[in-house]
């Protein structure tokens, strides 16, 4: 069996749209649909979800045809994993440990997503940036964050 279609843009685009639209319709099936005179909360989402599924099927068929455009460009897996994770880390730390640990973790963490990461440079930069942000956002603009939870 020829699995070449797995490399095609439109194949994956189709799958994504079908999943999004199908998911929307599936969830919205429990909402009251109503009539066109009195549209219920389910009316708009089901129509939109249906449209997405339709577009998805169109792309899926396009993607299965030979000669469709292939996926290109780097998928930068490193950045794709590290950047969202460092944001999540920021979210977790700012609630539990305070502004300074959260900022340091975010800046140092996201910097490692670059292939040109240099440890010493980033450490200095992170301390500098965090200090700047504390001065500007917490002291000058008065955002109500604990700098280090329980201590400051």
């Amino acid at each position, binding site marked *: 069996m020829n699995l070449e279609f797995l490399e095609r843009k439109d194949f*994956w*685009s189709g799958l994504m749209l079908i999943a999004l639209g199908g998911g929307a319709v599936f969830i919205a099936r429990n909402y009251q649909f109503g009539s066109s005179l*009195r549209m219920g909360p389910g009316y*708009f989402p089901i129509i939109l979800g249906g449209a997405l599924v339709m577009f998805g099927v169109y792309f899926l068929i396009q993607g299965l045809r030979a000669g469709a455009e292939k996926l290109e460009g780097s998928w930068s897996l*490193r950045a*794709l994993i590290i950047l*969202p994770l460092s944001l999540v880390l920021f979210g977790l730390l700012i609630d539990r440990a305070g502004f300074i640990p959260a900022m340091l973790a975010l800046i*140092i963490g996201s910097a490692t997503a670059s292939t040109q990461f240099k440890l010493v440079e980033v450490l200095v930069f992170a301390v500098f940036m965090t200090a700047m942000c504390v001065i500007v956002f917490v002291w000058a603009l008065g955002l109500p964050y604990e700098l280090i939870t329980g201590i400051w």
Partner: protein
Amino acid sequence: MDLFNNLIFGFGVALSFQNLFYCFVGVLVGTLIGVLPGIGPLGTIAILLPITYSVSPVAAMIMLAGIYYGAQYGGSTTAILVNLPGETSSVVTCIDGYQMAQQGRAGPALAIAALGSFFAGTVGTLLIALFGPPLADVALKFGAPEYFSLMLMGLVAAAVLAQGDMVKSISMVVAGLLLGIVGTDINTGTQRFSFGIFELTDGIGFIVVAVGVFAVGEIIANLGDNQQRRVLSAKVSNLFPTMQDLKQSFWPVVRGTGIGCFFGVLPGTGPAIASFSSYMVEKKLAADPDRFGKGAIEGVAGPEAANNADAQCKFIPMLTLGLPASGVMALMLGALTIQGIQPGPQVMTQRPELFWGLIASMWIGNLMLVVLNLPLIGLWVKLLQVPYRLLFPAIMAFSAIGIFSVNNSSFEIHLTALFGVFGFICMRLGFPMAPMLLGFVLGPMMEEYLRRAMLMSGGDPSVFVTRPISAVFILATILILVVMIAPAVRKRREAFTD
């Protein structure tokens, strides 16, 4: 003279100390991010939106607008000096601008770019002042069916005219509309797509989507691409263009302004299309087209005027009809809503200081840019040397602080991460993201207008074609679709995309 009085009133508002200050901050930040590749006006405005909460609506809009047109200026500076377009709109400027710099004429190229942009900005400002009020008068007569049809037309036009695959743009509009539904249904109180999560009952934050897709998603994409820096090769010595330069540039600037204004009011066409068209026109009209690509000053003057005029005229539908014609305008609309102002034609009568103040500030901002840009070129060039490996963690930090400052909600930070991943995947699959933002902003309004229109007509969908104004919008929508699907236009579109 109504126009005259209104403009004087506007200048009175814009010249207040606070508003001048925010205008200055806006154009400065705008130029800065225009110079820096890898972060555009969309991402920056999204990140800075929360800061505008604490200031007056006028000052907020003035600053955000300043960022927007400041970025156009900044983008051309790096295009000319280092052959690196800071924004997509200045790709065309690279062609002849960089050649001029190579020949030691960087100064005149920069000066002409700035003066041409200033001229275009002035004309654009006047156009908004002239056509804004009558358009808003018409729009005040709109009922629910008209608004629904207008938004439908706007969304279809934006999707169809945007660069890239048309069906993909439309799918993203629909996806955006769906995202806008999340939260409590205002008519019945039903929770929709909120998965029992308390933070989602108010809907997904506008800033969360914008920052996630246009800042985080964009950075992920940039890190995948090659990060190489080009070195500055040209020295800027003599800034002043010669008489000959000015003469050669005059008509290209005028034509570029016209082209920019035309594309500006069309939804979905970015400034890149305007500047590209202007370049093509100048090359066709030139007595010796061979000079183009070898440092012809017309190739800088026309496109630069065009992209600035385009940026300026994008405000017309946004301010008068409440209809965003581009991603940035969708953000502006969001900023208005956050300030508690319902966008639409009533803004002009209810908040005249907002409308006229913003218009006057645009002219002042354009003037500031001319004054600011030319002497500060050395500084901008230095900034280019900040490596991206340090720039992007800083952007991440500002994004996180910006989002967290809105609701102090770490859930929204996590949601932003999710939208970053979603945005990146969509970009790699060839989906344009600006249409999604338009759909997201207009979604709740469209559903509401559709419901009202249906209640009005007793459930009869023919209401959209029997009311004349609405019928015109529907007809225009169909026309746009038919024309774009026609094979001849399709081919030309593909050429554009290349």
